[in-house]
């Protein structure tokens, strides 16, 4: 178990963008829902929970690799750099998760959470897309070593799913990878399978990112073989 001091530094290294985007996005949507004031307030919050927070977390995760000014030093210390990056990923996703639990709590208290979801299974509304986009961001960051390119990929995939939902919802197998199954899903009985598939594939994406980061010299951009 590493000291809490190390985690304290990694919170600072995760960066303001990764730490500020989720609360700002949540606050903006809460404000929007409150201003809206109609019957759709809960629905707006639910959409924020499933769509906006995961996007913020995904972009935050994508920004972790490729912007570390001390990467050469990091790669020569006994603490492996990919462990350090994983710690920063945990900070980014953990912070988004904390806010998501808060919003989910509000929805559960106000009856805005779909009735068939309990307090525990309701957490999969945000957890599945958050870890999936987080995993994709981490992998893209490891592959491109550019926060802009990795963040762009995460955002593009999110927009594609928003604009062309039929692309994934049209087939049984691809429906399990649809990120917005709670708010825009076409087959309610496939919800649990969708959530669990998203979580499982997110672990695969993060694992691939982990493997890619194993070659230290890939991170020294100018030296890539």
């Amino acid at each position, binding site marked *: 178990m*590493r*000291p809490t001091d190390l985690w304290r530094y990694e919170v600072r290294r995760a960066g303001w963008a990764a730490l500020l985007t989720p609360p700002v996005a949540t606050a903006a949507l809460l404000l929007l829902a409150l201003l809206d004031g109609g019957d759709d307030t809960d629905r707006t919050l639910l959409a924020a929970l499933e769509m906006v927070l995961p996007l913020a977390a995904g972009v935050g995760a994508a920004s972790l690799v490729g912007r*570390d*000014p*001390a990467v050469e*030093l*990091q790669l*020569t210390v006994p*603490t492996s750099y990919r462990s350090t990056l994983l710690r920063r990923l945990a900070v980014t996703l953990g912070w988004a998760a904390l806010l998501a639990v808060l919003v989910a709590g509000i929805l559960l208290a106000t009856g805005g959470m779909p009735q068939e979801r309990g307090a525990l299974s309701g957490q999969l509304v945000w957890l599945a897309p958050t870890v999936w986009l987080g995993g994709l961001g981490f992998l893209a960051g490891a592959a491109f070593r550019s926060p802009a390119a990795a963040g762009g990929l995460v955002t593009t995939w999110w927009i594609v799913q928003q604009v062309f939902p039929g692309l994934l919802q049209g087939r049984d197998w691809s429906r399990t990878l649809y990120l917005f199954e709670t708010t825009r899903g076409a087959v309610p009985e496939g919800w649990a399978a969708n959530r669990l598939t998203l979580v499982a594939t997110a672990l695969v994406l993060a694992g691939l990112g982990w493997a890619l980061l194993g070659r230290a010299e890939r991170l020294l951009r100018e030296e890539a073989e």
Partner: protein
Amino acid sequence: MRIEISGLVKTYKGKGRALDGLDLLVPTGMFGLLGANGAGKTTLMRILAGLLRPTGGEVRIGGYDVTGRAGRQAVQRVLGYLPQDLGVYPDLSAREFLDYVGLLKGIDDRATRRRRVGELLEVVALTGDADRRLRGYSGGMRRRVGIAQALLADPRLLIVDEPTAGLDPEERIRFRTLLSQLAGERTVLLSTHIVDDVAQTCRELAVLAKGRLVFRGTVDDLTRRADRRVWSVVTAGPAPTGGTVVSALPVEGGLRYRVVASVPPAPDAEPLAPTLEDGYLALAQPGAAEDAMRP
């Protein structure tokens, strides 16, 4: 910690060979590595620090094979590394930066870490500025922070790449003295293209050119390479040709050139006693590198 390198090759895609079958033995103590830009020094340093994997050949440090993962990790536990361009976190103060690096180097006990950081800030004369953010530090001050971080975990192997670049003359001398003091039981590998840094601190050195070893020996050996090859020529005309001009000093009647050449560059050329810099330049002359590696 002895460093044994044999047949080391490093190839970059599209850039050719940075290291081309390098054989080198580095003993415990202070050791200099000289070479022009692009000679392969930084690539070698990075391989030794475990940052790059060689394309071929063997590297053993203190018995550990650094071409393998376990060996690299073992070496990194006893390594202090100062890269050529040390990146720092501008939002941290020097004290915080060193504290963070201390954690990464496995100094988990807070009190031990704080004591060590305090000592090193004193060594590099940054105690007064320790709580200022690194964003506001000059290049020389950042360099000193880099030196302090390299020494944090009391390393047995210290690899410093162009450590005096950006330091003012006083800081340079202080840092050179510090490195010499640290050597003792440690191995300190000093890579530089500033010949004087090696002349003032090392007894043994190697010279690289185009990824190959062109000299390995003592400072005196390299200096002797320029015996009967250093000349003084005073002229008001064009600079002497047929050799390497080391310096040009204005004197009455023109300029006094110091020239390294195998034959006198002018009929009135006077022979001079060589320095290490002359020896280094003599190596660059046609045929000299091959001669230098002959037993």
